[in-house]
């Protein structure tokens, strides 16, 4: 649980973050979106005190984040940034071992953790551990950057545009991997991005920032249906709204009784994917199969059209 209460940050005359209060539930993904200069990165960096707020408090599990020396606080909070920030003179294994080493873990435990994380991020520990960051592809560097942030098993992971430097295909894969890892470690993730698509894909809740203020803090569905301001609406993109709505929910939520012809779609797929398949194949309905492969009903074009409609 992260409680941000009345946080303000001023640099001289300029107010970068103005009186922001947010409560972030544990084991969720919260995405802070906004245009550049909206104060989203500053807000994120105040959580681990890379930036000290002018006023207000931030509590982690009820404890003020100023009750510890800043470096000790940061060792308990994962931190991953755009362009990975790996140390070029240290190997992949040494990079990942940074925080455990700072915390004084014993060698065997560090080695086991490095092996576990590399395996989890689909990097062969024997092949990749001894390599230097420049010998890795962009996607691999990014994975090592996140692995390093998670090495000391932090409850909270802060990410500042972590996928910004990746090409679209690798980015989508990295996002899915992040969600899987978040479930695995039950980490509370706070992620900053300017990419709305990314926000809707990852977030349990989205905080939209504009000129230093949080203008809306809501679940993706709420935000789509009831955007708080014209700015939020423009950020979502009026033309994208129905598709984003369908992209949030899975086919399982839209299953109707009955049967349909042709190739089936998995119930775990998003409704947007179902709509796309319907449009592309020119069918009116798709059969739906559950996780066990059994037929559980159909998803129809009409049903999806109704679900994609906004409030009237």
């Amino acid at each position, binding site marked *: 649980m992260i409680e941000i209460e009345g946080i303000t940050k001023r640099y001289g005359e300029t107010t970068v973050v103005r009186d922001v209060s947010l409560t972030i539930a544990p084991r969720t993904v919260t995405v802070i979106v906004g245009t550049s200069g909206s104060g989203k990165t500053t807000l994120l960096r105040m959580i681990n005190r890379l930036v000290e707020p002018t006023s207000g408090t931030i509590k982690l599990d009820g404890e003020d984040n100023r009750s510890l020396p800043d470096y000790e606080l940061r060792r308990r909070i994962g*931190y991953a940034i755009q362009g990975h*920030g*790996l140390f070029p003179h240290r190997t992949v294994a040494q990079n990942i071992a940074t925080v455990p080493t700072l915390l004084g873990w014993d060698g065997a435990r560090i080695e086991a953790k490095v092996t576990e994380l590399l395996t989890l991020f689909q990097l062969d520990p024997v092949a990749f551990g001894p390599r230097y960051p420049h010998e890795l592809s962009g996607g691999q560097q990014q994975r090592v950057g996140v692995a390093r942030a998670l090495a000391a098993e932090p409850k909270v992971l802060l990410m500042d545009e972590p996928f910004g430097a990746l090409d679209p295909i690798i980015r989508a894969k990295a996002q899915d991997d992040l969600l899987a890892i978040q479930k695995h470690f039950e980490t509370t993730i706070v992620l900053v991005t300017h990419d709305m698509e990314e926000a809707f894909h990852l977030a349990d809740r989205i905080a939209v920032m504009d000129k230093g203020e949080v203008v809306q803090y809501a679940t993706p569905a709420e935000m789509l249906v009831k955007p708080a301001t014209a700015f939020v609406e423009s950020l979502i993109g009026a033309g994208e709204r129905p598709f984003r709505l369908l992209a949030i929910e899975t086919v399982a939520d839209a299953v109707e009784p009955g049967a349909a012809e042709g190739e089936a779609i998995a119930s775990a797929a998003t409704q947007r994917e179902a709509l796309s398949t319907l449009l592309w194949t020119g069918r009116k309905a798709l059969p739906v199969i559950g996780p066990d492969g059994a037929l559980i009903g159909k998803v129809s074009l009409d049903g999806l059209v109704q679900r994609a409609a906004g409030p009237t």
Partner: protein
Amino acid sequence: MQFRVDKLGVIIAALAAYGALLAPFATFRANRIVAGEARSIGEALPSAWTVVVLLLVTATVVVAVLKTPSRLRLGTAFAAIAALALGIGAAAGHLTPPENAYARVSPASGFWILLFALGLLAADALTRLRPSPLVRVLFLSAVLGFIAAVLTSGTWDGLSLLKEYASRADTFWAEAGKHVTLALGSLAAATIVGIPLGILCHRVARLRDGLLGVLNAIQTIPSIALFGILIAPLGWIAVHVPGAAAIGIRGIGTAPAFVALFLYSLLPVVANTVVGLAGVPREANDAARGIGMTDFQRLVGIEFPLAFPVILTGIRIVLVQNIGLATIAALIGGGGFGVFVFQGVGQTAMDLVLLGAVPTVLLAFTAAIVLDALIETATPNRNRVQSA
């Protein structure tokens, strides 16, 4: 078969031909002060040596002009240099009349031109071979070993340079010690003071401009002027600070030389530390802070290792600069190889000047090669961060 011509080789060949055939090979003088008489290669060397040297030089010229493998070029160049080095020793014995202790034989322009041309060929071939740092240092050791072997064998004992050395053997090593102590000591002091100053400049932006400005200004003061400026304050310290005179601080002598060299050394060390630290990737620094390194851990673990090659480059500049500058210390009684240079100038004895100059050049050359090798070892390609 078609032969292709190497452009640099043509220049080297022309130089070598001029040096071997037209310029005098050695100079003979009845005593160390009088003007010398030129001797051509044929006159200076016993006939067997003339044949050997000319054959090897001819072979090298042919190898240099044609496009040939670098190893062959290097090999023939070194063989010819060795022949030249041994040959000049033979010339001394050949030209000096028996039982004559006053006559002096020294290498003349032809010898130096040949040495330069062959050295150029060897250096060019060596560069093309791109040897690893270790191999370069081994090469240097081999060359220095060869020089040491020739010196101890007595082959060069008949040369005027060695005769000058023989009459000053004891002071030579004392001055050599002073020279090295001055150059290395002031470097060590500048490193100990300069690196923390550089770190401070990096952290405190306001200090940076001021301090670098002052150091830049010091760098522009001519060395002799700086020695002069230092005489007054150091003299004052010697008189007024108890114990200062006892440890050798005086207005003239080693102390002002040491202080001057130290001041000259500060700028390269401080500036390179600042540049090196500024070159540390911003993301690496941000990540280091963000994952909980203290400022000191970040400095020691991240910033310093990444800046180290640049700092080492500064130290290389200082070392080579100091070895040369330490020569001037002799002017104010600081000792070093400069003693021989200035004595030689005073007596118009060129050989004495060379006794000071040649070791200085060898020392600077050695320092440059060793530190370049160190820098290359410390600068792995991992510092080039691949962008995503």
